């Protein structure tokens, strides 16, 4: 492969990112010894929270992460922590000292934290609830301070609900009917005493007996989700993609790379399929799912096009982009939430919506391929070697991915119009999400048209393609994380703006460094006309 040598650097860079992001080993401060019956097996039991039934493992992971920023506490898993905190409502004491992160400086001041302290124990935070409530109500304008206080308030309220034993809901089956009751009323003394006669561990027995009855009435979909979460498919597919990439670029074993690529596709297909089975809808309704789908779609598309064009560089583009998306899914968990929650009414049962978003996300994937290749060429040209012939050769492949990407983007925008017409009766409403996808489309159109004028020779074409992807990122993330208004409702989080800002900065930096280094020759080369 022509570009293999320099890809090593890129690969090392990603590998380095991987190590830096891996969780730090926990300091063994205060282990929690008394765990009653709170074992990890409880993760498999169903709980109804946030509008759907899910395994306790999923709920506990989400809750403990929301409260403390981590999915575990000292030597305890999220399930154990959640269980122990809930038992506090039944006067079963524990030694857990869960703390909330207080990052906002004004919030630290409001809570009168000592200098340099960025956490507050929930036991203390709960005491502050009335004061927080008053402060939040007083604010008319939503600034970042109010938002930080609001988050603290809802965290504290949630903690109070959990430790009151009101958040852990368990199924109670009576005559084919399931009621969800809090753990404090579920574990009644008479039930426990009765179970104690037959079992060593009466609590667990009472719970699992009821879960068996529940399964007979309501099925065991939550068990599938439990095993799904346990399988950690995003992590598996990330490792497979990185292996494939290593085989392709470092070891130059193309067949092996292909084998790993196919395995990645298979694992991701399983990941997507199970998510569809759990949520009962197309896997494209929040940021996490769109990122997941675009990486998969791009690799899939790249493998097909690569096969027909008999060109390995497509496999490289697909793997590289897939690796990016999978790293985001595994490490950027603050920005992309993997939780599955019910949709707002307009997004439900909608054929046009599914078709529209699928097409758009596939187009983002295809255009991301062009972005990967354009940046690779830029870096390779600046810091390695790339003949003019190769540059022209590769920009032909960039053109192929652009062709796929823009057709799908155009079709996706039109399908979006059809969906809007079907749901609201208007084809186009200048909603920021649709406007930004049109902006991205128009920018790519300007580049493709301009390429046949003297304004955009090859030397400008490649950096422009690399830069144009910023408009896709803006349409995809920026509208939600920066503009944050309009009808489209996939999530909204603070970390997103930071991520997007750094992306724009790095991408602009790459373009500046790689083109300025080429001296004054830009634009001197012109296509014949």
């Amino acid at each position, binding site marked *: 492969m022509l570009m293999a040598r320099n890809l090593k650097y890129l690969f090392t860079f990603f590998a380095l990112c991987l190590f830096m992001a891996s969780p730090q080993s926990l300091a063994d401060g205060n282990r929690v010894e008394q765990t009653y019956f709170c074992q990890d097996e409880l993760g498999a039991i169903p709980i109804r929270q946030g509008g759907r039934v899910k395994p306790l493992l999923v709920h506990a992971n989400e809750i403990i992460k929301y409260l403390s920023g981590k999915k575990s506490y000292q030597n305890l898993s999220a399930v154990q922590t959640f269980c122990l905190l809930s038992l506090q409502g039944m006067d079963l004491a524990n030694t857990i000292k869960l703390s909330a992160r207080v990052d906002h400086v004004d919030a630290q001041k409001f809570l009168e934290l000592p200098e340099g302290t960025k956490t507050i124990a929930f036991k203390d935070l709960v005491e502050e609830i009335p004061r927080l409530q008053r402060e939040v109500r007083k604010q008319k304008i939503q600034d970042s301070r109010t938002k930080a206080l609001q988050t603290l308030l809802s965290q504290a309220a949630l903690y109070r609900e959990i430790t009151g034993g009101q958040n852990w809901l368990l199924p109670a089956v009576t005559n084919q009917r399931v009621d969800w009751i809090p753990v404090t009323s579920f574990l009644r003394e008479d039930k426990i005493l009765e179970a104690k006669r037959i079992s060593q561990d009466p609590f667990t027995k009472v719970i699992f007996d009821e879960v068996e009855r529940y399964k007979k009435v309501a099925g065991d979909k939550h068990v599938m989700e439990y095993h799904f979460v346990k399988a950690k498919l995003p992590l598996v597919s990330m490792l497979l993609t990185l292996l494939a990439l290593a085989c392709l670029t470092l070891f130059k074993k193309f067949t092996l790379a292909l084998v790993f690529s196919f395995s990645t596709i298979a694992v991701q297909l399983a990941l997507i399929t199970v998510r569809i089975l759990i949520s009962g809808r197309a896997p494209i309704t929040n940021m996490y799912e769109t990122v997941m789908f675009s990486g998969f779609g791009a690799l899939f598309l790249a493998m097909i096009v690569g096969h027909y064009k008999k060109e390995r560089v497509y496999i490289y583009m697909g793997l590289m982009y897939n690796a990016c998306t999978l790293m985001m899914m595994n490490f950027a968990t603050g920005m992309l939430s993997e939780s599955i929650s019910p949709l707002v*009414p307009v997004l439900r049962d909608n054929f046009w919506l599914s078709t529209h978003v699928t097409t758009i996300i596939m187009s983002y994937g295809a255009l991301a391929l062009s972005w990967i290749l354009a940046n690779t060429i830029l870096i390779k040209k600046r810091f390695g070697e790339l003949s003019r012939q190769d540059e022209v050769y590769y920009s032909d492949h960039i053109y192929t991915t652009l062709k796929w990407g823009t057709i799908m983007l*155009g079709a996706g925008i039109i399908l979006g119009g059809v969906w809007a017409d079907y749901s609201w009766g*208007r084809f186009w409403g200048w909603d920021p999400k649709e406007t930004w996808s049109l902006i991205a489309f128009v920018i790519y159109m300007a580049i493709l048209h301009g390429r046949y004028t003297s304004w955009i020779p090859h030397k400008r074409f490649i950096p422009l393609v690399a830069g144009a992807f910023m408009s896709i990122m803006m349409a995809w993330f920026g509208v939600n994380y920066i503009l944050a208004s309009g009808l489209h409702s996939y999530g909204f989080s603070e970390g997103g703006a930071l991520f997007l800002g750094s992306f724009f900065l790095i991408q602009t930096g790459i373009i500046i460094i790689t083109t300025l280094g080429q001296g004054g020759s830009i634009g001197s080369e012109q296509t014949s006309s």
Partner: protein
Amino acid sequence: MSTKQESASIHLNDSKAKSSTKKGTGFNVTKLEKTLGGLKFAVILLSLFALAMVVGTFFESYFGTDFANRTVYKTWPFMLLQFGMFISITFAAFLRLPPKKRLYGFYTIHAGLIIIGAGSFMTYYAGVDGSLVLPPNTPNREVILSDDVLKIRFPDEGRLVSFKLPYTGFSTNIDEVYQDIKLGRYLPFAEKEFRWQEPRQKYQPSEPLHSTQYTLANEMVAQDFTLSLHPESIEFESNLTLGPLTIHYLPDSLAQCFGQNNPSKLILWDRSQASCYTPEDKKIAIKKADSGRRFLVVEHKGDLLSFFPDVSPWPLDQEMKVKRGAELRIFSKKLFEEKPNLFLFGQATAFYDKDEDQWFQKPLKRNQPVEIPWMGFELIMENHQISKVPSLVPTKVLPIQKNNEMIKGSTRALELIVQDQSYWVTNDQPVQLLINGKRVVFLLQKESLKLPFEFVLTRFKMEKDPGTNRAASYESFVRLFSENGPENHHIYMNNPLKHQGFTFYQASYSQDRQGNYSSTLSVNVDPGRPFKYAGSLMLVFGSMWHYWLNFRRRKKGKVSPLVAGLEEPPVS
């Protein structure tokens, strides 16, 4: 669209051949046509279009949807840009005539775009896009559109005049005259600012005109309020209810009588003199009627007036008829002892303290808190004006939108100049004036459209996600009254109702304080719809066709896409 340049890219020899055939077949291409259909023109337009949209989305994010529409998307420069693209696309296709087989896809794409453009224009020109609010069991046929209008109603003549206001984002001077009414500044985005204004008319010195600003606060809450007796005050009244507390604002001359703990707890108020006295002051006997009710007879300017103070403040004359609006009236403090009532007289207050079973009257000094006997509240007098009018005057602002809600600039206001006096009519406050003895009502509203049929919301159904308060779906059951008699329909998300060319979609809902749901339907007429769909199909299939033709040509080795530059038809 993405593809025309490649199809147009042909070898140099080829293009020379083409230009000569063009001349031969009579296709003369002028320099202007070449420029308009040229790629550079297209690139410039595309870049400007993208730039304008970027500005639009940021405006939308900061200033709101309405502002972005008024300043970017629905302005003539932006429309002109779209028209320019329309021209560019048309000429690009025209320049590549007569038809060539390899350009069939390209023609389809461009024709598709032109048809979409035509369809959009038809929607813009002849379409309807509005909303219909259906409160429970109340018939409605009025569709609210987006244009702002001033409606001038002459109730005596039963006449209504409508005046369309400009679709602008900024303060505009209308400068139009209708009869004696001049329209001044129009503020599409305004905030109401509190101001003390000089009265427009002269008043008798005895007439109470004062207005006061107060703050009522305890440790938990603080509430500012303004009360006024001035007849010109529109926004501020003399009564206010704050939770369980009722506040009465009375003329200052009544204050001293409230402080007297006279046994009868009655106060007589003479409006003509702006003075008060108690029955005890004038030694008026309080008798008991056969029914056991108290009554008293007072001589006032020669008339004998009888009062039943525990029933009504108004007197009965000699014929025992109620004299509403009489100069003399009576207050029975007894009636205000059961529930919390706070009496304010500008610079004094009076209230009944249940614990002490006594009425108190206290003077209020600026910024000095006075304790009142409910929930630890303190009353602070902030400002007192004897004759100035408290008013909310609209001032222009840049709007702010957060989380789909206007938090600043949600008021629309228009200045009316009548007989050299300026009045503000706003979207939430109509203005009523007497012009040359005739009543005239001004309303600032949205343009509306009367449907030829009528709707009633018979039932609204909302389903929630299990165990939460989030709406999972909302559905309207409506009864439609048309010439064919009533029909029942069920409208919900993704299941619109089509009737007589109108389409009704479930858009949103609202809930009033009693918990009743109102449903909002969006109403739509789109004559351009078939064109937009046909054009879109042509666009997508044209692109595919085009790439297919290109792919075949490339396979045959006819074209190398990257080496060739674009050859445009030469100027003839």
